[in-house]
């Protein structure tokens, strides 16, 4: 891709991003720069015994470019313009080499998807997130926009600031829904182990995990551990077990931090999503 094309593409990307960013930031006078309100630690117990971790949270170094080299969008742009490789520590903590343990055919598939993402010629080469599709679990915990945790007796609820994505996680030990039902957000069941929320998610649709084409199939089973380490910090860890695509289960980790309590305003992504031709190379 020539630098000129790249800059045009980047400009379009920024324009699209701006159209989908909620108005909250504009309305609240730079709220993102204010410190989070202090919350008690150890956390208060709610009526059903859950530790109270409600509020707004976001990944500390969020971004969907890559799990194994999680550079920011800006770094991704710099890398392309300058041709210099930028490395960030892999989010993958198991296997120890920090790489995704693809089966050979799946590794080839990821490479092809990465190439298609760089040079999209068909609509399906555009990342699902850019088409406003819900990214699912665990990807939604790696994106930049924040989410809100709301706790009600017997359930914990996550509502994302964008894509109007949400998940209601029952904590009452009920069984999963029938295995033939596939959901964009999967079917989640959770329980607390001290200050760690453990969530078991099945009934997934296959999904892309990153811009560079990492993926899992609809046979994926995700186990998440969200450990609230103090009033303002949470460590998110997800283990993906998908024998269709990988040679073994793998685990990644990403830190999250509490953000100021603010009103969340409407996010309408699909309603303003342009024709895919805008992105495609002819």
């Amino acid at each position, binding site marked *: 891709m020539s630098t000129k094309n790249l800059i045009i593409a980047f400009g379009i990307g920024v324009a699209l991003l701006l159209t989908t960013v909620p*108005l909250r930031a504009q*309305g609240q006078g730079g709220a993102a720069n204010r410190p989070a309100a202090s919350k008690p630690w150890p956390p208060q117990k709610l009526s059903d015994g859950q530790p109270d971790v409600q509020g707004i949270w976001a990944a500390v170094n969020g971004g969907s470019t890559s799990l194994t080299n999680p550079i920011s969008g800006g770094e991704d742009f710099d890398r392309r313009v300058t041709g210099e490789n930028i490395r960030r520590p892999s989010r993958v903590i198991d296997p120890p080499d920090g790489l995704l343990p693809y089966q050979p055919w799946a590794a080839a*598939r990821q490479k092809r998807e990465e190439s298609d993402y760089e040079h999209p010629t068909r*609509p*399906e080469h555009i990342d*699902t997130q850019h*088409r*406003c*599709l*819900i990214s699912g679990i665990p990807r939604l915990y790696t994106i930049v926009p924040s989410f809100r945790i*709301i706790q*009600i007796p017997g359930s914990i*609820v996550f*509502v994302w600031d964008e*894509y*109007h*994505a*949400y998940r*209601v996680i*029952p904590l009452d030990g*009920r*069984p999963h*829904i029938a295995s*033939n*039902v*596939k*959901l*964009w*957000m999967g079917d989640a069941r959770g329980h607390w182990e001290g200050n760690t929320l453990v969530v078991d998610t099945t009934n997934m*649709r*296959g*999904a*892309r995990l990153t811009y560079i084409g990492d*993926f899992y*199939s*609809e*046979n994926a089973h995700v186990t998440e551990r969200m450990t609230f380490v103090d009033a303002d910090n949470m460590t998110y860890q997800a283990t993906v077990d998908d024998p*269709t*695509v990988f040679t073994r289960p793998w685990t990644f980790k990403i830190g999250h931090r509490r953000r100021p309590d603010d*009103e*969340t*305003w*409407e996010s*309408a992504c*699909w*309603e303003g999503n342009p024709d895919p031709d805008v992105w495609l190379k002819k």
Partner: protein
Amino acid sequence: MRGRFRSFVILVTVMSVHPAVAGAQTIPRTADGKPDLSGIWQTMNAAAWDIQDHAAQKGVPGGPGVVEGNEIPYKPEALAQKKKNYEQRATLDPETKCFLPGVPRITYMGFPFQIIQKPNELTILYEYVHTVRYIFANGTPHPKGPIEWWLGDSRGRWEGDTLVVDVVHFNDQTWFDRAGNFHSDALHVVERYSLMDPDHINYTVTIEDPQVFTRPWNMNMVLYRHKEKNFQLYEYECYGFDFEKIYPYPDLGAAR
């Protein structure tokens, strides 16, 4: 055991003798004494097709409308637009584009929704396209406009046991139903949620839009609580269906 049975008999007797009193006492309440609207609800009417009285057509259930008095007081030019909308509803209805359907249409789309009630804020999670709506109930005013949102800006307050939600800052892109009933961006909606008993909400909506209607008018319907064991919201990713053929890697799907 015997004592528990006796209490049960007394309770039943009280409820049957004084239904009004018993009803007032038995609606669920939050710790701060407000009626507790938490739960999963759904309408049971034909308003998604047409909010006015209408006969069935193929694929369209008929039924009584939800508009009080049945007449919608359109201005003459707006009535002409409504008729045009109806004739071209197959292509003009924003629902066909899977856009956020607006308020109050999202309520009676026919999909379940979950109300989460906190003292200063209610969150409504709708199954239809994962729509999320926040109702701020901490006494703050609407943000200063002009703002054009699909679902508007919702500010709630309690009038006795009724949650009153004032909604403004709409765009003019949504309809009220599949029959072409419409509004402008001057739309002002007031919703009233009032528990009739633990499992039914009386839902009344006042519609005001001086650009389209000659006077305010009301809708009224009942919201029914889902009581099935382990009931939960599924998904209706409206625009996602068209993408299932290409995303993500459908050829990887195991035999379903």
